[in-house]
């Protein structure tokens, strides 16, 4: 891999954008590590799961199924549903990585997280230089991977030492809030967020957390509709 100036420049810009919000990843990782140990998995199994799966929602969602000895197909289906939102993110990021080799696209795809997409998505779609885009995407994503696995390591080996009533997992929610606030400065974005948020709340009764996926689709549709309505009104 040639570290040419455009790659380094992109990497620097990506890390600068990613760094502050990435703090919220650590408590989540620690909590995930603790959760895996708490259902009776040993250290090796917990670390193995994290290295292979690398998806907090799917990992946490699968734990009750693993604990209760559910059939493998059900675990697979649950994982698919909990990861479904990434198909949308993948479609949005794909044009930015078109120029890369298949191996790089597979690695880049595996490393695509909520945080990376939320923080890096917009600039990825706007930037013209494919080398700059690759640096801007892959370096923060690798940094996020290292951060996540380190947090899991702390959680897995320190499971007995963290008091539960500190609610450290709330730092994950704070990180999500910090990401969403600057996004919703335009009217259609605010509509998308409100519909997505309220939708998830109202549809939470759907099986396998499908409500989360449905709410995201509703939010996208509402934002898009608001944009059209907004521009139509501006034109008349």
């Amino acid at each position, binding site marked *: 891999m040639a570290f040419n100036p455009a790659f380094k420049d992109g990497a620097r810009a990506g890390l600068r954008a990613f760094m502050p919000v990435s703090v919220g990843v650590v408590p989540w990782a620690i909590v995930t590590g603790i959760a895996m140990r708490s259902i009776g998995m040993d250290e090796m199994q917990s670390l193995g799961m994290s290295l292979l799966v690398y998806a907090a929602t799917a990992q946490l969602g699968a734990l009750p199924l693993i604990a209760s000895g559910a059939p493998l197909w059900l675990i697979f289906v649950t994982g698919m549903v909990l990861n479904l939102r990434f198909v949308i993110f993948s*479609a949005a990021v794909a044009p930015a990585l078109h120029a890369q080799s298949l191996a790089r696209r597979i690695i880049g*795809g*595996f490393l695509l997280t909520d945080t990376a997409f939320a923080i890096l998505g917009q600039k990825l779609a706007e930037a013209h230089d494919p080398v700059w885009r690759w640096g801007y995407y892959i370096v923060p994503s690798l940094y996020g991977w290292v951060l996540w696995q380190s947090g899991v390591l702390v959680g897995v080996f320190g499971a007995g030492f963290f008091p539960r009533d500190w609610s450290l997992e709330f730092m994950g929610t704070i990180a999500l809030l910090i990401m969403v*606030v600057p996004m919703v400065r335009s009217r259609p974005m605010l509509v998308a*967020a409100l519909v997505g*948020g309220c939708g998830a709340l109202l549809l939470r009764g759907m099986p396998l957390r499908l409500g989360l996926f449905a709410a995201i689709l509703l939010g996208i549709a509402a934002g898009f509709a608001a944009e059209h309505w907004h521009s139509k009104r501006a034109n008349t």
Partner: protein
Amino acid sequence: MIEGVWLWAAFVLLALTTLVTRGSFIVIGERGRLPAVVLRALRYAPAAALAALIVPDLLLVQGSVAPFNSKLLAGLAVIAVALKWRNPWLPFLTGMGVLWTARWGGLA
């Protein structure tokens, strides 16, 4: 609990779900280019997805809607701070501070 080889089989299946969903359009590449209108609509995906993860967490206490709770109070404080200042650490300090204070004060 699922044991031994079957546990690792479950991990591999879950790893597949990560790879298949996240990889989907990125791996397909050039051949899977979406229409411009879909890509424009997808600009709303991050805001919708983030809000869909946040709102239930702020409003639900043990599975039912509780409009007055410490997480919502802390969340509102985080939004206020994030709107006013650009400091990246301040929201974390404020949010956790408000959460612990509200809990200590007896709020659910």
